[in-house]
Each structure stands twice: as structure tokens, then as C-alpha cells.
């Protein structure tokens, strides 16, 4: 990327995602997920997305429920202790013929091997995990019939090899992930794309290296030079970043260390709605499709509630927030 400005609007950045793309969403389950961008992808009615997060959270359940997804290759899709991923669950239980959705199961460790292989330009990496598990049972490969046909899928799930160098034990080879697009939400990004993340990088830096296009939304876009004082705190060089969007609360309702905590009220409402297909459709209209943009979304959440989620700058989270959904009280 040259010196052309990469800073753009959320809608412009989302238009870089094409129907049918393989997309890696950064963050980890209910932490630092690119939710604002995901809402915009839904508003732009993206279709046939192939999602490869490691691991997935509400962003994947939401995209599945909105009908944007044809396949997921992940180790986990869920909301952690908040509750179950009902859209994902319903799509799997319905079966691919009816739902048009396929899911392939992996693990956290092999997910990291796969995205690191993608980052390294390698076709695969070996692991000692997966042995003994049905995850590599050849009779239980749910997308076997698509392998060799869908170019986004590796031709087979795994392969086996004897270590030719040392003790000669059998290792499992796992295929690289090669996402078209990587979408990250973070605390700070320079106006040329340098990323500075707090509270763990998760797989973001590898995914940015593996993907053809990387989009970064951030709480703050800062002058690039201000990130050069302490360069060791930066995690992704701007050269790997193609689009930058300033998006305060772009991770809401997930937690962004030092900025805001998980929004338990959002999860309570989302979980109640997503249990049922019709209720979820109404929720989606109310919270995403009927909301023109991110500013309108934040206005709908309301400044009082956003204030209530503010993280303590030292602790990185909000120590006062109550997190038990069955005893949640309304924000006063």
C-alpha cells in the first residue's frame, strides 16, 4: 500500500468484503470482536460468507442468523457463560439441505496452526493434537462432499506423516487458512494502519499476514508518528492494513480492554430473541437492518448504558458491573 489514505467510512470498508469471501474475524469469543463491522456487513446483505475465526463469538452467530454465511471452519462458536449460540445451533440441527449452512469442527491449537501456516505462506503445518478425537474421524467429515469442489476448502481435512527427522512418531498435518479478508477491531490504529492492541493480540496479527485484505476498525485513529515512540507495543505493521475506520464502541457488546466491558444487557436480549427464529428476525430488524449506521446504533444503545460499561483504566474492565443475567437490573 502506498501513502494513499486508507481511512474511510464503515460502509466503504465493508464494501471491500465480497459475497462468497472467506473472512477471518479477529478477537476471541466475547472479547474485542469487530461487531460494528459485522452489523454493517449484515446491512449490506452479504451472502455466502465462509467464516474462519479462531474462535468465534456473537459475531458468527449473528451472521449465521442473518443468512450471510454458507460455511464456518472454527473450533468454537458461542457467547461463553452468557448462553448458547442459538442461530448456529438451529442451522446445524436443521441440516445443510434445509439451512444451506455447513460447519466443520476444529480446535484452538490447530486453528492457530492453520492461520500461522497461512501467515507463513505454507500449505500446512504439523500438530500432535487431534489424535484420538472424532474431529479427524474420516467418516464424520461434514464437508467431505464439498472438498475438491469448493475452492475455499482444503481438498482434505487432515493428512498424516511420520516424522522423518527425529523419533519417527506420526504427526497430523493441518491445512493453512487462507482468508480473503481479515477484520479486526482494536483500541488504536495509526492513520497509516499500524495496530496497537491491549489485552492480547489473539490470532489477529497472523490473520492480517495470512489475509489478502485486512480491515481495521478502532476506538481511535491516531497520528501514525505517535505510535513510533514505543514501537514494541505495536502488533501489526500498517503495510498489511488496507482499510481503517474510526469506530468508537465498534466492539460493543464484546469487551475491549481499557475501554469497555461486555454488555450483559445486550446478551440477555440477544439470547432471548435468538432462541426463536421469528423473534430473532424482529431483533435483527430492530437492532441492525432498521438502524442506518453505527452512530444510530450507539444512540439506540444509549449513552447511559455505554457509560455504565466504561472500563477502569488501571484494571482494564469494569469492576462494578454485575454479570449474572438472571439477576440483571436495568441501568438507572
Amino acid at each position, binding site marked *: 500500500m502506498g501513502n494513499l489514505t486508507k481511512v474511510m467510512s464503515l460502509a466503504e470498508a465493508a464494501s471491500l468484503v465480497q459475497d462468497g469471501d472467506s473472512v477471518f474475524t479477529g478477537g476471541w469469543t466475547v472479547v474485542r470482536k469487530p461487531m460494528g463491522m459485522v452489523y454493517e456487513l449484515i446491512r449490506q446483505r452479504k451472502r455466502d460468507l465462509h467464516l474462519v475465526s479462531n474462535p468465534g463469538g456473537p459475531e458468527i452467530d449473528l451472521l449465521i442468523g442473518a443468512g450471510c454465511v454458507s460455511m464456518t471452519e472454527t473450533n468454537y462458536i458461542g457467547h461463553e457463560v452468557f448462553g448458547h449460540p442459538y442461530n448456529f445451533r438451529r442451522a446445524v*440441527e436443521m441440516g445443510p439441505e434445509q439451512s444451506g449452512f455447513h460447519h466443520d469442527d476444529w480446535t*484452538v491449537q*490447530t486453528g492457530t496452526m492453520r492461520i500461522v501456516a497461512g501467515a507463513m505462506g505454507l500449505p500446512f503445518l504439523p500438530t500432535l493434537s487431534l489424535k484420538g*478425537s472424532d474431529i479427524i*474421524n474420516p467418516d464424520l467429515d461434514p464437508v467431505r462432499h464439498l472438498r475438491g469442489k469448493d475452492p475455499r476448502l482444503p481438498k482434505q481435512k487432515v493428512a498424516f506423516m511420520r516424522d522423518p527427522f527425529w523419533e519417527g512418531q506420526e504427526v497430523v498435518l493441518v491445512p493453512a487458512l487462507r482468508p480473503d479478508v481479515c477484520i479486526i477491531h482494536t483500541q488504536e490504529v495509526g492513520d497509516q494502519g499500524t495496530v496497537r492492541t491491549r489485552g492480547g493480540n489473539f*490470532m489477529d496479527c497472523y490473520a492480517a499476514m495470512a489475509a489478502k485484505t485486512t480491515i481495521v476498525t478502532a476506538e481511535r485513529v491516531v497520528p501514525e508518528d505517535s505510535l513510533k515512540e514505543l514501537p514494541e507495543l505495536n502488533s501489526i505493521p500498517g503495510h498489511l492494513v488496507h482499510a481503517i475506520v474510526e469506530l468508537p464502541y465498534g466492539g460493543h457488546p464484546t469487551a475491549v480492554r481499557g475501554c469497555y466491558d461486555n454488555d450483559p444487557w445486550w446478551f440477555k436480549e440477544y439470547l432471548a430473541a435468538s432462541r426463536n427464529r421469528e423473534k430473532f428476525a424482529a431483533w435483527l430488524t430492530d437492532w441492525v437492518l432498521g438502524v442506518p449506521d453505527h452512530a444510530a446504533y450507539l444512540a439506540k444503545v444509549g449513552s447511559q448504558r455505554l457509560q455504565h460499561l466504561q472500563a477502569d483504566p488501571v484494571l482494564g474492565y469494569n469492576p462494578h458491573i454485575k454479570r449474572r443475567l438472571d439477576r440483571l437490573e436495568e441501568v438507572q
Partner: protein
Amino acid sequence: MGVHAQQGSYSGLEMMVVAASRLLQNGEMVLVGTGLPLVGATLAKNTHAPAMTIVMEAVAFDSRPLALPFCVADPRGVYHTPWTPTAFETLGQLLQNRRIDAGFLGGAQVDKYGNINSTCVGPYLSPHKRFEGSGGACDIAALAGRTIIIIGHERKRFVEQVDYITSPGWRCRDYHTGALVDRVELGLWGGPEAVVSTMGVMKFDPETKEMYLAEYFAELGVTPAEVTANTGFAMDTSRAKPFTPPLVSELEVLRTLVDPEGIYMKY
């Protein structure tokens, strides 16, 4: 050794977490999953195992949370850790390089060989109920020095054979033949040390690799016969002993420090 809590002053859930926490040793490096494992490990860290190193696969090494993390990536777990690795380091390196003494896992089903299912109920390709998936559980069960499993005791959860082996136990899937074989034949080390439930502590026979009842929560009124009745396979109870009840101090730490809100403990 401290004062034992009065009978009737604690729940099966509390007994389970206390029993699981006692299996973690001071000085060990432990990989901990979200949910009850995190509660049990935090309890151990704040009672008998202050020098235990808690590793959360997403980001936290030697975590010392002041408040209970909601998941393994929660900023609560990141606070005051000396190192914030990625899962490439925690599971790709620490775990695979045999530096993790114990893994601490939950699940939806467990079978007599200690295989865990956290993927689905019913046939995998057309499940009745789909769950979130492995996360790091399969990796931890395969590669930790030993595994401790924590799971509520119900007949539908303690099954002859799990519907899907998410995480391998003592006799698990040979991916070449589809048969169940000893994990050592697949080149795996480690294996489940114990299953801790709401009724007792189960261990595995070194010869048959099958689960047996080692201790039962007698003070909660549990009997070996009741454990058998709530288990979906024939379980040997001939070696069972009553479990030493929780200490007042253990319960106090659990209730006031580890999970005061009752997020997991549901007081």
C-alpha cells in the same frame, strides 16, 4: 487442617468445585477452561496452591484475577499477568512441548474411558442438540500431563460411549481404523486423572482404563448405589470411600472471593 463445614451448609455444586480444586497441586502449571474449571482453579490458587501457575489459553499466563473471568480472554484474567501470549504460544508451544502439568476441562458427556463430548447430542452429522464445540478442550485432553474433568452427575451425561469424542480419554478413536484403542498407541501421553461430579470423585483403573468410584459425597446424602443409579454404564464402586467435606475456609474463599456474584455457583 482447618474446620470442616457443617453438614447441609453447602451445595453439591460447591462440593464438586472444592473436590476438583483439591486435585490441583501447589507449584503446578495448569491450563484452565472457561466455566467451573476456572472457578476450581481460582479456588485452589487462593487456598492450598498459591504457587500454582494458571494459564488461560487465549491470553493469560500466571493469571491472578481479582474478579472471576467470564472467559479465557476476559480482561479480568489479563490484569497483572506477567505475559500475554497468544494461543499459538499457550497451546502450540507450552502445551505441545509438555510444559503443562494439568488440564482442567468441563463437557456435556463423559464416557467410561474418560472421553469427553462438548460438541453435540445425537449423531454428529444430524445432531439433536448442537453445542459450541471443542475450543481448546481436545488439544488439552490430548497433550496435558494429566486431565481433570468436572461435570454434573446425571445418567445422560455419564454414558457408556459418548456421541462424539471431542476430547480423547484413555481409550479413544484410532483415526486409521475407527476402533477404540489405548491412547498410548496413538502416541499420546497424559490422560484423565479424575472425573469430579456433583456426587463424587471418579478415577480410572490402571489395568482396564475404566472409570470407578473413588470417593462419594456422603455428607450430601450420596450413596454408592445412588451414583450407580445415575451412571449410564456399569461402574465399580467397591473401592469407594466417603469424601472429606469442605473446610469452612474453602467455602468462604469460594463465596466471598472466587465467585461472590454466583455467576457459576448460582447461589
